[in-house]
């Protein structure tokens, strides 16, 4: 049988030819000038254009939390925001956590508490937790559980994650 590569599959060519919008975003300390089609989610831009694959897509219904990033400091689902809407915004993804005090502390406490199993939800959990700790120092376990309600983890049963954030919060509050 002869199978040919269908027309239009030239690789990088955009077949739709829809208008693109110039967008400037500041991601993990680096400025990016991009031309984005209006229907492309920030998650696609981060993963496909910038190669930041730490943010994961676990659903298409803004229900799993695995793509959570910080948009101007606030935890936001990167699948629910169009890339061009972030023009002028500062974005932090899990790849930047090593450079922030809350982030690196959270990372180590997640590891210490065995709060990571398959690791697919972890980036979203870490970003949500970073946002939480910046908002409220020393959150209680119920506050943490409430903040994570939209973040699904199928591996851990959540205890270790809550514990890790609680410990990190307490440490940040005392230092």
């Amino acid at each position, binding site marked *: 049988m002869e199978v040919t590569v269908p027309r239009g599959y030239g690789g990088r060519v955009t077949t739709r030819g829809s208008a693109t919008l110039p967008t400037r975003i500041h991601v993990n300390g680096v400025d990016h000038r991009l031309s984005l089609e209006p229907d492309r989610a920030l998650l696609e831009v981060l993963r496909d254009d910038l190669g930041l694959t730490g943010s994961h897509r676990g659903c298409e219904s803004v229900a799993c939390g695995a793509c959570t990033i910080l948009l101007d400091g606030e935890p936001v689902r990167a699948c629910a925001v169009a890339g061009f809407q972030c023009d002028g915004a500062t974005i932090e993804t*899990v790849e930047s956590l090593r450079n922030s005090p809350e982030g690196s502390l959270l990372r180590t406490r997640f590891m210490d508490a065995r709060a990571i199993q398959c*690791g*697919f939800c972890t980036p979203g959990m870490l970003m949500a937790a970073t946002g939480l700790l910046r908002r409220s120092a020393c959150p209680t376990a119920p506050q943490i559980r409430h903040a994570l309600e939209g973040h699904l983890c199928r591996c851990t049963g959540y205890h270790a994650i809550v514990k890790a954030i609680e410990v990190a919060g307490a440490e940040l509050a005392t230092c």
Partner: protein
Amino acid sequence: MRRVEDQRLSTGRGRFTADTVPRGALYASFVRSPHACADFTIERQDGAHSDFFSQRDLDAGHLRAIPFPTTPSDCIKPPRSPLARSTARHVGDAVAVALGCSEREAFRAASLVPVRWTRLPHVSDSILAADPSSPLVHPELGSNVAFTWEARDVAVARHFEECPVRLRRQLAHPRIVAMPLEPRTVWAAPTARGLQVATSTQVPHIVRDVMAAALGIPTSAIDVVAGDVGGGFGCKLDVYPEELIVAWLAKHLGRPVCWIARRTEDIVSTSLGRGQYGVLEAAVSGEGRIRALRYEGTQDVGAYMQLNAPVMPMLTALMISGCYRVEAVDAVVRGLYTHTTPCGAYRGAGRPEATFHIETLLDDLAAELDADPIELRRRNVIPADAFPYTTPLDITFDSGDYPGALAELESISGYASLREEQQRRRARGEFVGLGVSCFVEMTGLGPSRTLATGGWTQATVSLEADGSVLVSCGLGPSGQGSETMLTLTVAEVLQVPPESIRVRLGTTVGVPHGTGTFGSRGAAVAAPAVFGAAVRLVDRAASIASSLLETTSARLVDGNFETSDGRHIGWPEIGRAAHYGAGLPQDMPLGCSASFNYDPPGFTFPHGAYLAVVSIEPTDGQVVVERLFTVDDCGNEIDPAGVDAQVAGALWQGLGAVLMEGVAFDDAGRPTGTTLRRCHIPRSTLVIPWAAHRTHTPSPLNPLGTKGVGECGTIGVVPAVFNAVRDALRPCGAVDVGLPLRAHQIWKALRSTDVNR
């Protein structure tokens, strides 16, 4: 110790399949049936170029029917074409595949494929499917029966005649979505030699073998890498049509091709777990000893036979007597095709169903005899001195201490005072219940002859020139922390720091054989394999060290090889000498690595005893699990923190199964709850105070004394909570409830009794 895996997973540097898609890949999108059963035609306009493929194209391109093996081998299994040919047999059945430069383009192309559907009658329930008047899923078979397996014992009838107490229990374990957070994903790229494939699977070697057979190319031409796998829980232990089609497309188009399941299509196309209906009967002596059991089980196979559909009810039958000393068991199970997503393994696979049946029956018996549930179990369990113990169905339990686990449970829970508290609260009109389960489970599937896919695992431990160590093993982990567990295993044998060890898993590259990860194989099968290789590596290194030190008996002491007169050299010197030859005699072979094939002589049997305390809110029927006490025994533990994590995760999946999960099908045969928003799984707000304890009864089957642990929590907690809820409802007689124990059902049960009217 921190996990080896966590360095990359906590910094966004995990290598999940969707993170590694090659540049320039085409994306595939599948056209799926919206109907439970429908004939279809796809209209191609003559002369127009089409950018989709149907089964006709796959036939012309020689992609063969899916050729995977099943256990037992005599299952009635019509050949399954990768895409449906002219009839779609479940909602989500793939009928065509479209391509695009991006996922979005592919999705759009798929939505434009002109499919014309003609709906046909369907059957979504396995009990109804057995009825001769029901529609046939595969009409050419003349029946919906996919397999029957039985273990008959005529002695059972005698026990039923002689015993004064007879009990009968019907239970259904609904189908469950495994729901790993990472949806199924696969990409394939042509290479000079054949194909490079990355897929989110638990069984890279089985995927490779089946793919090679389907494409008609040698296995050596395909490399399969699973990378980091975002959860599997059994559903990624099948070989799926999408994997074969993506590989075929890459081969024939000469381009990398990728498919990433959207959540909804993942839910409707990935194997569902459980799906078993059963009737368990017991013959019991006057003193409350179970003499004989009779089990009839019906497994929902779904529309097509998956790798494990027949194994699940067989395991249920084999484990139906639980941890109890029973004299005779008579079991028959059958599988039935229905117009639903195929069923496959899900955490526990068959053992949760068995435990659910026998443990529920034990509580019924306790109520009938007015005995305490723990006391009744103590009367029936296999005593600690009876091991190895062979069950009536010829399964040999390696080791265990069931009375010990029960005693531990009574002690950590303060059982007597919990019962007193229950009486006080009941007197105040509260609905409070205590539920117990005492369970045993089989892990580390093997020996190889019991499985169509083999059960043995190969491990290689190599000393590199710089003294670092590379471990490779045919495991396919999906979050269990196996790299860490195997690192610890090797570090102990070689007496080297864990940082000098690298573990390569989940790949066929450099690992000739492996059966992947399932049935809690990590500690029970892979660890003994790696241990065996490491021990052999020490022997090999000792001979090199002896040669370098010009002695005959260099021994490994504190990480160095020493002679009796105190001279010593370390791993780096041995690595250098072994790799470059300097200082070694001519007749000494170079290199320093050792392999070991471990075929488990039998299953290992971890066990435990759980207790749940629940209360029920009478106004809305909401079940609140107030406290949970667990005693687990998985033999010796290599990574105790990893065992904690596995038990915790398994428990919460079990809590999901008993409290909220379960796929329902509407009148049109469509599954309900096919998005994450509408699918109930435990969230962070499900808080249950939990006290965990462990006992340690080593397995005599392997030198490490280890057993598997990944599934215990899921198996033990369902009957504990179920029994507790029935205990809470018992005063008002509303015990006839089923899984899952959602509030609405409990509320209806309460409303149906006089007490609450």
